[in-house]
């Protein structure tokens, strides 16, 4: 229980931090310290188990189907990191209390810092790789917010974006790698992964998985060639740089490599990828650090270099090297965090970080200077300090690395060279800043010592450097042993934590590094001149250029696809559909199936011929729109006949009534639109379109033929069997619509209602001036409402309504139902509009169709909700039979109320659509009044 508490408490406390900010900086600093103190107290009882090589695990199920669990694991390695995160975190909170100005948003700062701390603890304590990845991404996000804390500065925003892009991209690679690992062994639990090292390493996907995971680790830990985000993240407030970008977050990549060491390390690929990346980063970072005039820039590149050193140690593959790596993690965190804090103090007190102006500060702030000098000496690897110990171990391992032939000299050479650079830049940090003449043009002059408490965190860390440097076995021995055994996943070889190993090669290399580094520093002007000859590559500019170039390319690509032409989109849509359909269909083979062809029924075949002829006629005559429309209606009627002939009476009725409404609608639209289509497309384009159409048609013919001649099994047996006993109706199609699949139908009528309302809204504020003549220049008929039509249509209305009631009522048992009855009613009403005009009809139909529509959807929904009241699931139907005198036995089903909703929706939607269109006429123009009837 205590492990999730340690991780989640900072997040909870982050909510409270802004509240405490009302009480000032001290109050929020104290409040923010609570989770770390509780965390340390919660971890302490576990130490005994870990010291004996044990593991503490807690697990809760989260999404078992995905292999994601809320599980936590504490062993030596995660204990080491958790302690670093918690203890340095506490010191940072104290430091930030004095670093931040009273007017700054202290609450936001502490809240973000706590979120970061929780995420970081989540990474190191997760017992599940997927869970770890979630926290991993959270650190990228919180780091982004912390770097851009001073969001008014452009550089801060840019640096934050770059950090997010690089580490976020690496996170994606890591996710892919983790998924591959999970696929290999069938579990994301850390315990399973660590136990399955051999399986993973012998798997064919191992190289890919390793590359992806290392991409995640390298981007996070600023390894070459992804190192450039780290120096640019130095725009962050210094407490953030000290915490995230030296002690903790950048170590997450290192942690990942150490964590998965038993599962992934020990192969040639691991050796070459990890150690060479580390080597390049080590050398590059140390070299560039020398030439940085910005204090934090120097420290940032030095951090890059030290991260490279740890990576190299982990990559070497020997157990002693891995132990040295873990040891250096501790040492680097202590001296680098204190150096960053010292740099922050100097910046805070003098107003600048430029080493060309910062000189001779020893006179003004001797206390801070002493602390910074001890830490810098540790960074350089001066004996009796902790940096020296891990560096000696590194030198020893570099000598042990057995590369073939002359290559064997490379690692010691690079190690010594990096040592020389490290001494040189550490010497610069000490000599340039605290001695070397007088300060030049300081914004705040004279500088003085910072507040007493601001130095305490630095003092504690520097003290740690000294204690570890002088009494290593006593101070860090136990935790190092626990962490090393967790990293190696087994036996720990013998190693010695002593301050001197006698005169040997590593010591000689150290001496060489010192002499070389001091010479180099004294001759620094020559090196600066030499370095100045090369044009420095500004990583930020390159990154910006790449980002904007990618943006441009994708914009151009999008623009070339999306040129605003619907014709182009439709064309691409069909071509894409062909390509997508071709591959699966080609592999199926579109031949005539085993059922063979049934004999041709000649009347049906004649109907089919007429249908095809009418369809082709529609296309041929499409320029003369009215003719084309008449032919279209022939097609529609024949489709209705086809449904009738193949045992689908409901479909035939629906198609028939829809056909009427559709054609009326299209005729209506022709009143406003040109009656004739001009020839615009070149004949080549027409041939192209014709070929595409032909491909589509032939494809569909083949697919249909193949489908119809193959046997199949249907799930419809269920519906046929249960229609009567379960739904109380014999018309299975209707029972499916209103009962079995009632929920689908509810969705469907909702869509219908939305479409009708959309039409209403589109037409409401739009006016079209109807043309004075028809498309060919002929005047409109003067007789807007022909008497014959009027006289016939009016008595038809009650008859049609009666038919629709009949169709509605019998729908459950015979062909019919709400849809068809609704359409018949709509047709009956529309005929009144056509015959007598919209004004006449509107006077008589006083209910707005929007209300009818809403009523329909409402009734259907309420029927569904009603079954809740009786304790049944949504839309459960029930039915009973009642016997009335005269009428006889009569079935009453709740499904019928639902069907009434359908009926009302269909009536409302059809009429709303048609009347909206017919009201489009601009009534202010003289023409429209007399010809309103034309627009229904």
């Amino acid at each position, binding site marked *: 229980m205590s492990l999730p508490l340690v991780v989640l408490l900072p997040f909870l406390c982050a909510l409270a931090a802004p509240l405490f900010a009302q009480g000032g900086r001290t109050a929020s600093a104290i409040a923010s310290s609570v989770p770390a103190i509780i965390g340390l107290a919660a971890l302490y009882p576990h130490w005994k188990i870990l010291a004996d090589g044990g593991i503490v695990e807690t697990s809760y199920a989260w999404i078992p189907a995905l292999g994601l669990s809320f599980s936590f694991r504490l062993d030596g390695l995660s204990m080491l990191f958790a302690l670093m995160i918690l203890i340095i975190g506490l010191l940072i909170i104290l430091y930030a209390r004095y670093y931040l100005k009273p007017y700054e948003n202290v609450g936001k700062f502490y809240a973000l810092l706590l979120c970061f701390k929780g995420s970081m603890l989540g990474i190191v304590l997760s017992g599940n790789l997927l869970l770890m990845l979630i926290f991993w991404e959270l650190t990228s996000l919180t780091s982004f917010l912390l770097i851009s804390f001073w969001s008014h500065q452009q550089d801060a925003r840019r640096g934050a974006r770059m950090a997010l892009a690089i580490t976020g991209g690496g996170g994606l690679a890591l996710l892919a790698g983790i998924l591959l690992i999970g696929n290999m062994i069938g579990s994301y639990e850390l315990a399973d992964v660590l136990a399955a090292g051999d399986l993973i390493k012998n798997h064919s996907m191992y190289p890919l998985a390793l590359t992806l995971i290392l991409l995640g680790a390298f981007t996070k830990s600023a390894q070459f060639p992804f190192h450039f985000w780290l120096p640019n993240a130095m725009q962050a407030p210094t407490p953030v740089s000290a915490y995230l970008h030296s002690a903790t977050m950048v170590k997450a990549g290192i942690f990942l490599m150490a964590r998965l060491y038993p599962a992934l390390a020990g192969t040639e690929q691991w050796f070459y990828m990890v150690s060479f990346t580390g080597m390049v980063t080590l050398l590059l970072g140390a070299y560039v650090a020398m030439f940085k005039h910005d204090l934090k820039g120097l420290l940032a590149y030095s951090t890059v270099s030290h991260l490279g050193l740890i990576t190299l140690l982990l990559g070497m593959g020997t157990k002693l090297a891995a132990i040295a790596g873990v040891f250096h993690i501790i040492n680097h965190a202590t001296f680098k965090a204190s150096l960053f804090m010292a740099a922050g103090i100097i910046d805070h007190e003098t107003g600048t970080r430029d080493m060309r102006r910062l000189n001779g500060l020893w006179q003004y702030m001797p206390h801070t200077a002493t602390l910074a000098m001890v830490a810098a000496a540790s960074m350089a690897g001066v004996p009796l300090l902790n940096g020296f110990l891990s560096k000696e171990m590194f030198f020893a391992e570099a000598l042990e690395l057995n590369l073939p032939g002359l290559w064997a000299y490379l690692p010691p050479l690079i190690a010594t060279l990096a040592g020389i650079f490290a001494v040189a830049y550490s010497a610069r940090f000490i000599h340039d800043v605290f001695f070397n003449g007088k300060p030049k043009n300081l914004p705040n002059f004279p500088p003085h010592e910072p507040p007493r408490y601001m130095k305490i965190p630095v003092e504690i860390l520097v003290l740690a450097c000294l204690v570890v440097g002088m009494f290593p076995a006593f101070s860090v021995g136990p935790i190092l042993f626990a962490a090393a055994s967790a990293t190696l996943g087994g036996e720990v070889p013998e190693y010695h934590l002593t301050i001197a190993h006698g005169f040997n090669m590593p010591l000689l290399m150290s001496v060489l590094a010192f002499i070389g580094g001091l010479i180099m520093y004294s001759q620094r002007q020559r090196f600066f001149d030499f370095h100045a000859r090369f044009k420095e590559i500004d990583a930020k500019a390159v990154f910006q250029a790449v980002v904007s170039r990618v943006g441009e390319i994708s914009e151009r690509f999008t623009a070339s696809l999306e040129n605003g032409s619907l*014709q182009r989109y439709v064309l691409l849509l*069909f071509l894409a559909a062909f390509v997508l359909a071709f591959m699966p269909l080609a592999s199926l083979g579109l031949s005539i199936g085993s059922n063979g*062809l049934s004999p041709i*029924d000649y009347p049906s075949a004649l109907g*089919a011929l007429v*249908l*095809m002829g009418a369809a*082709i006629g529609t*296309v041929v005559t*499409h320029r003369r729109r009215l003719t*084309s429309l008449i032919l*279209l209606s022939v097609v529609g009627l024949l489709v209705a006949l*086809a449904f009738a002939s*193949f*045992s*689908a*009476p409901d479909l035939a009725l629906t*198609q028939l009534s*829809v056909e009427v409404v559709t054609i009326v*609608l299209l005729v209506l*639209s022709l009143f*406003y639109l*040109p009656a004739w*289509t*001009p020839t*615009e*497309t070149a004949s080549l384009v027409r041939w192209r*379109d*014709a070929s*595409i*159409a032909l491909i*589509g*048609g032939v*494809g569909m*013919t083949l697919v*249909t033929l193949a*489908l*119809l*001649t193959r046997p199949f099994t249907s799930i*419809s047996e269920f*519906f*046929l069997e249960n*229609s009567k006993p379960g739904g109380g109706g*014999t*018309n*299975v*199609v209707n029972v499916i*619509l209103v009962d079995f*699949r009632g929920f689908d*139908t509810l969705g*469907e009528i909702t869509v219908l209602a939305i*479409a*009708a309302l959309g039409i209403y809204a589109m*037409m409401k504020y*739009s*006016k*079209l001036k109807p043309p004075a003549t028809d498309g060919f220049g002929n005047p409109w008929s003067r007789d807007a409402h022909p008497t014959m039509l009027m006289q016939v249509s009016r008595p038809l209305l009650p008859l049609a309504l009666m038919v629709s009631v009949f169709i509605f009522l019998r729908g459950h048992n015979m062909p019919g139902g709400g*849809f068809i009855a609704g359409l018949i009613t709509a047709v009956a009403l529309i005929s009144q509009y056509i015959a007598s005009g919209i004004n006449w009809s509107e006077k008589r139909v006083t209910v707005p169709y929007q209300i009818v529509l809403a009523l329909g959807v409402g009734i259907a929904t309420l029927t569904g909700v009603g079954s809740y009241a009786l304790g049944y699931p949504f839309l459960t139907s029930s039915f009973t039979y009642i016997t009335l005198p005269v009428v006889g036995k009569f079935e009453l089903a709740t499904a019928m109320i639902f069907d009434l909703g359908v009926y009302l929706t269909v009536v409302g*939607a059809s009429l709303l659509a048609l009347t909206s*269109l017919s009201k489009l006429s601009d009534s202010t123009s003289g023409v429209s009044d007399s010809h309103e009837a034309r627009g229904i």
Partner: protein
Amino acid sequence: MELVFALVIGTLTSTGIYLLLRARTFPVVVGLTLLSYGVNLFLFSTGRLMSDGQPIIGDAETYSDPLPQALVLTAIVIGFAMTAFLVALALRSHADTDVDHVDGIKQQETADEQVDRTENNQ
């Protein structure tokens, strides 16, 4: 019979696609209607073709598949809603841009087209 049915669906698809690729709104609406006929018939035919087997209990010895019929019934109604919406869209576009081109761009009438127009007139 299957071959005839398949040819009908193929013809409807072809004619529908050709008209959907036209540049004016009205032919596109007509094309969409033709294509929906084809699609509806195709969906319907997944239950296979059968005469005298209407799925009304007690009416026949073997029943045709009621499920595709229920699906197509709603597809017809939704298809109507879609056509109506498209018509409204076309009219709105015509009202706003004063042309009935699908891209809403006014195209210059060429001399040929004017001849075309007079021919149509007669």
